[in-house]
Each structure stands twice: as C-alpha cells, then as structure tokens.
C-alpha cells in the first residue's frame, strides 16, 4: 500500500536498516530513568512548590530551585542520549554498509 516500486528495486538506505525495529537492550534503562523522574517530580511537587520566603536552595527560592533541578536533569540527559544514539546508530550503519559490500 505505501511501499513504492522504486524503493523495492533500490533497497533501503543503510541507516533505515541500521535502526532496529525492536528496542535495543540498553534502551530498557530508560524505564528505570522514568522511575527516577517520577521520584524527582514527587520531590519537587510535594516539597518545593511552597511559599516559604525564609528558606532557600542554592540561594534561590524553593520553587525556582525545583524547576532548575528538573530542567538540568533533562538537558544533561539530552546531551548524554545524543552521544549514545549517535555512536550506536553510526556504528550500526557502518556494519550494514560493510555487510552489503561483502
């Protein structure tokens, strides 16, 4: 229905074959990360979203520090996952190209 004739004749680009249809084993670690993220959400929402002008974290009001904790978590994760995915998929692409040459 969606596959074009030209694609069937030419075969897939190597990166398409290199991306696995299943989850790679290490990708299941992201579920563990979501458990940690749930804890972080609980911590921020239950303990830091308060109006307590006498208290501070990192020199900032508690709600602002809580938001900062969340944002730092996802931005660090972003760069880490970028590096991992770039290395893993690039390696897999090379393997696919090598396999086709052989």
């Amino acid at each position, binding site marked *: 229905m*969606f596959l074009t004739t030209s694609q069937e004749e030419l075969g*897939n680009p190597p990166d398409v074959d290199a*991306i696995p*249809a299943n989850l790679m084993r290490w990708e299941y670690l992201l579920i563990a990360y979501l458990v940690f993220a*749930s804890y972080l959400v609980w911590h921020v929402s239950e303990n830091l979203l308060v109006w307590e002008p006498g208290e501070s974290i990192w020199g900032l009001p508690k709600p602002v520090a809580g*938001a900062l904790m969340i944002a730092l978590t996802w931005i660090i994760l972003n760069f880490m996952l970028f590096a991992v*995915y*770039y290395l893993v998929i690039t390696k897999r692409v090379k393997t696919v190209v090598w396999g086709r040459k052989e």
Partner: protein
Amino acid sequence: MNISTWSLIVLSTLVTFFAFTLIAGYIGAKRTKKGLHEFYVAGGTLSAITVMFTYMATYMEAWEFVGMPTVIVSEGFEWWVIEMIFYLSFVALFYLVGLRLYKLGKLHKYITPTDIIVHRVGGFERLLRILIALMILYATIIYIGMIYIPAAGVLAAATGGEIPYHTFLALYVIFIIIYISAGGMRAVAYADVMAGVTFIIAFLAMVYVTFTYWGGLDKLAWAAYTSDIAPEIFQKTQPFQYFWTMLIFYGISWLFIPHLVVRFYAAKDYKGVIVGGMGSNAGFFLGAFVSPLLLGLSLAAYYGSNLPEVEVVEGYVPMLFMELFGIGPLLILILLGLIAITRSTIDSMLLLVSSIIDVDLIERGLGIKVPERSRRLVSTLVIIGVALLSVTVALAPEAPMVIIGFELCWPAYSVIAWPTIIMLFWRRANKYGGFASYLAGFLSLLLFTYVIWPEAPHNPLGVWEGTLPTLIALAMLIIVSLITPPPPKEFVEKFYGLKK
C-alpha cells in the same frame, strides 16, 4: 481614527516580517517539485540544521515565550513547572521514538501522521482515516485558534489597544494563508529558520536587558518571590497525581504530536533526526526554561498584583517589554521575535491539517479522487477553510492559551499518541485492537470532557485530563488484540522492515 506613530511602526513591523516570509514562500514554491510527498514533507530531504530549526519551531512558540510567563502570574507557578516536567519524559524518549518514526517514514514514504497509523493497524482503512482525521482536526483547530490569541494579543497590547486585537488577527490569517499555500513544507521550513534566528536575537536582547535591570537571576527570583502576588502564585494547588500523569501521559504523548511526526518524515537521514533533536532540545532549555522563567518572574516582580489591563492576558508580555525597555529599536526587535514565534507553529499546523483533510479525509477516507492539476487548488482551499475555522476559537477567548491546551488539545493528542507508540513496538497488536483503541479513546474523551465531568480536570481522580481516555484506549488495544487473531506474519515483517 487617530493612530500614533508607534502603533504604525508596530503594524509596519508585522507587514515587513511577513513580506520576508512571503519571499521564503516564493523560494519554497520555486523549489517545491510536484507531488504530495514533496509538498507536505519536502520529499524527505531536509538537512540536520533545517530539521533542528523546524523541531525547535514546533515547540518554541507563543506557548513557551508568551503563554507560560503569563500563566505563571495568571494561574500560578506550578503550571509552568508542569511544563518542565513534560520535558523529563519527552527528551528521554525523543530519540527512541523519533528514530523509529523516521525509519518507518523512509521505508513506506508516508505523507501524513495518519498514514503510519492506518498502515500499522492494517485494516478498516477508510473508517480509521476518517476517525483519526476527525481526532486530529478536533485538537488542531483548537490548537491553531489558541495560538492566534497571543499572536494578535501581543501586537494589540503593544499598540496599547489603538489597533484592535481583531485587526491583527485578520492580518495574521491572511499572510499565513498566502505563503503556506504557495510553498508547502519547504516554505514553512525556510520561514522556521528565519523565525529561529530572529527569535534568538530577541531572546538574547531580552536576557541581557533583564539581567541588567534586575541584577541577576537570584535577585529577580527573590523580587518575584517576595512580591505581593507571590503567596498566591507560588503555591501548589494540584495533587501529586496530576503532576505525575503529566510526566507520563502528557510528556510521552508529545512524541507523536502530528506536526512533529511529519518533521521526522521530512528528515534527510538519521543524523537529521539525532542532531536536529539534540539541537532543538538544547534550544528548549533556552526557549522553554530560561525564557519563560525570566519573563514570568519579571512579570511577578514588576507588577505584583497590579497587572496591566489587556484584551487577552498574553498581552502582559509586550506590556512588560514596553515598560522595561521603552519604545525604540530594541523593542521592535523583540516584537519581531514575538511575531516570529507566534507564527512558527500556526503555519506548520495549518499545513498539517491541510494534508490530513486533503489526503486522509477527502482522497483516502471518502474516496474522492482529486486530479493532480487541481491538487494545489484543493490544498489552498483547505488551508483557507481551516485557517478561518480556527479563528472562531480566538474571537472571544475565555482562558489563557496554556490552560486551553492542557485541558482540551493535548488529551486528544494523547489518545492518538499512546496506542500508536505502543504499536510501533508491540507486534501482537492487530487491526481490531487498533481500531477499538482509537474509537474508545476518542469517544470517552468527548464524554468525559463535555458530558460526564464538564469541569476541569474532567475526572474525579485529580489526574491530568487526558489520562483516563488514554488508559481506556490502551486497555482496548491490549484486550481486543489478545482476544482476536494476531496480525499476519507477512504483514508484520513488511511493516517493520524485517523482510529483505
């Protein structure tokens, strides 16, 4: 009617900006080859840098730059924290889901987000196309209307109401219709790059001046936290389960937001997805975290409870800029940035809805054949129709855009996204489970929202509005798939690209 020089400058800024986007539209039209795949997903040839800006433009819009700072003072700081929470799950799973969507898009040459859904479900194609098209239309028309609100409200507020909200609304719609009709996805992508650059300049100027005025983040934060509005806005009113369901259901549903899906199709190669994703997520740190935080805290610190009189609450942001920076070139630059970001999502959403009506509803759902030479005319008419229909949402807005989005738009996206993402990996899901899932999810959403629990959060459990309908959709997917025969092996192998 007397209009001041400043108001005329604001009007000219809008006209000049759109003149440049029309040039982008013209170049896009020149470079757009024939065919739907080219018009809607740029033939799948967009480079990593272009993809990065288009991803960024998908999210860094009026929602983050205008809506979030506003909601901090109008509804409470927690609503912005909720937005931060969604990035925790969205960023974590972006590459995992995005690469699979890219793979399947390249394998099967999809054009619309519905393509991948009906292909994976593997049956009931016509009915499913109509159902999904209706679901996406429902959410997207509200979404576009919701973004019209700050788009016009910001400029009306900048003129102090001299040029009315409805005049700017009409101008926006006219300009956008013209250049999208001309250039398709390529025009949107080029204009997104331009919008991104303009936004970055305006953002940096805003950060510099804000820091100069307040003397640093900590001083700004404390000024806001000790203002007379602080005890009211820095308090949690939603239960923990609302925050947690935003992390799980709302956050993950963003991975299959229709206008992001077509950008995965449009990427040239896997690097486009990975580099584009990393760059845009990094951009979100500025656009979704730093920018709304500084602006929202500035609103609280500067005005406290004496917030200015505006037609729509999103007008607080330009009012603050005018107060802090005065009228001059810097303010014009900032207004340009505001125009750019309010525009960037509207156009891609219009293009998306156009593709859904054109391809999914008319051609493949209802089976009406449109001759190729009439295709552009149909697309243009669809864009005009949807653009005008969405205006009805923005004519008399009753709530901040952010609240409209959380409550009405994203629950529908979640009902589409969750079953689809599960089916990307769960091969046992079949056509019966797939169809039942979307149907039950959408019907329960409408029932809960408009009939059973008309008051937010539209459920008695205190969870996010989209949670219960999504759970019902997932339950239907799993239960119905398991009690009916599995999908044919041949079909599964072909869909996932396992058959060489």
